[in-house]
């Protein structure tokens, strides 16, 4: 538990005239379930973009398990063990649930083995079935993903991310657009997941946060405003001001 899972050092990013991320420092320990909150425009999604290599910072570093991954391309960041779940469910609509999960499982394979393949081993199949249970989609493997509901697509995406077996998972508003019931389900699923990997969740939903949050980081205007347990944050007047004053959430 000595070295952090992921460390952001002095990260900065500017878009045109706007300083979106401002000398941000953040450390997350392995196995943690960290929630990141903040008003709209605080830079939460940009943070994920910077971590996953979608955009490059102007200064600063992203260090994952001791390794500088700041300038790695997205697919290499994924191969390093970080997977992202997007705000809008990003899955393969035109394929079936099973196909989605299988594709997610094979991300590290070379092209040659994908052309000249052998029948899938049973262990891989078992794992896929396990995942389908966790995301409440058992027995529906052959359905086309585009027929799924919004909530089910979100879960499928989580399932795909699991299929990949990452060590760090980044979840960007996993309950966006979900009903209260589905939101509760999702929080259970995420709690399950975080047992075997480090998880960072961007969220707005208070109930969800109450249920799940171990440690919370509050972002405002690209920098860390406050950090603490959910109770501490809830009681923090600065945080309240930022949320109420800005009209955010």
């Amino acid at each position, binding site marked *: 538990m000595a070295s952090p899972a992921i460390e952001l050092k002095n990260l900065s990013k500017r878009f045109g005239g706007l300083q979106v991320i401002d000398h941000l420092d953040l450390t997350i320990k392995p196995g943690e379930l960290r929630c990141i909150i903040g008003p709209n425009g605080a830079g939460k999604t940009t943070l994920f973009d910077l971590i996953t290599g979608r955009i490059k910072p102007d200064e600063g570093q992203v260090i994952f398990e001791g390794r500088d991954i700041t300038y790695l391309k*997205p*697919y290499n960041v994924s191969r390093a063990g970080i997977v992202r779940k997007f705000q809008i469910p*990003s*899955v*393969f609509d035109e*394929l079936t649930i099973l196909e989605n999960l299988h*594709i997610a499982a094979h991300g590290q394979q070379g092209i040659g083995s*994908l052309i000249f393949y052998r029948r899938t081993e049973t262990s891989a199949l078992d794992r896929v079935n396990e995942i389908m249970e966790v995301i409440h989609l058992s027995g529906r493997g052959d359905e086309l993903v585009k027929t799924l509901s919004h909530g089910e697509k979100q879960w499928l995406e989580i399932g795909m991310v699991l299929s990949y077996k990452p060590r760090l998972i980044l979840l960007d508003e996993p309950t966006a657009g979900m009903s209260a019931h589905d939101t509760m389900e999702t929080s259970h699923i995420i709690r399950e997941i975080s047992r075997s990997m480090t998880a960072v969740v961007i969220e707005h939903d208070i109930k969800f946060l109450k249920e799940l949050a171990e440690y919370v980081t509050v972002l405002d205007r690209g920098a860390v405003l406050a950090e603490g347990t959910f109770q501490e944050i809830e009681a923090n007047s600065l945080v309240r001001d930022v949320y109420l004053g800005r009209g955010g959430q």
Partner: protein
Amino acid sequence: MVDPLTWGTKRTRRILVVVILLAMGVFPLVGDDYNIVLVSRIICLSILAISLDLLWGYTGLLSFGHGVFFGIGSYSLGLTLKYFSFPGVAYIGVLIGISVSIIAATILGYFLFYGRISGVYFCIITLALTTIFFSVGNHPGLFHILGGNNGLVGPFLYHKFGIPGVWEYQRTMVSYLANYYTALVVFLMVFAFCYYLVKSPFGKILQALKNNEDRLEYLGYNVANFKIVIFAIACGLAALSGAISVPLQTTNPVVFGLSFNASIIIWIAVGGRGTLLGPAIGTLLVNYMEIWLSSEFQYLWVFLMGVFFILVIVFQPDGLLGLNLRLRKLVRSNA
């Protein structure tokens, strides 16, 4: 995207396949010479169309310059025959064509796909390719090598193809049947190869790529590499189709022109993209349509083809095979 490869029940499919194979096999025995040659050419062109479908229908990369690789295949074989004449040289020529094509595609692909070029920009650049090759093909300075806009003509084309000593044939004039069956056999092999490819995990990933490239990248896939590989495969197959067309028609720079390149796309669109079978059907259909229309409407036929194409794109972009799916949905919703 429709998958006629899963159309109907397994039994209907098996029966259909047998029927089609029989028809294709028996055709030359009942058809006249003119039509045999025509269908042979169409078979070559459908291989070309199927190879582009791998790129466009399955991976989502629309190349406006696929005919260029067809031309590379034809010219490679033609030039090899022009300058060398030992038995079996035709095979070397075909291999040269395919290799040149694959190498060129890989290099071009490296530049394009690592530069994150796709979609519309990919169309533009591949389109730009056609101009260069068209100019080179027509270039008066290279006339003695390439033949300018007459293309490659000459007695060397009557070289014997086939297997030396076992089964030989020469250009169209002499042996229609051999040409036809060669084209047919190559077509079936290519089709089987593409079918296997598309059904493999690699094929699924290509479809996933077309569907949601970002997601694939964030799952650890080096998307650019996949594109380069399928691009190389498609261009290699295009060169193959170009090579086997050498005994059937004159190799000339028309295939580098924008019209020919656009035609391939039309065949795929009309037949049904993303289906492998659709492009073949589309090639057959459109080519016969053009022949029929041009004899009925001497002055209007190109115009009519243009209108037809616009209508297909606007109202039935999934093509003929997509029509089947649409009808089934309609029937189901009314039942």
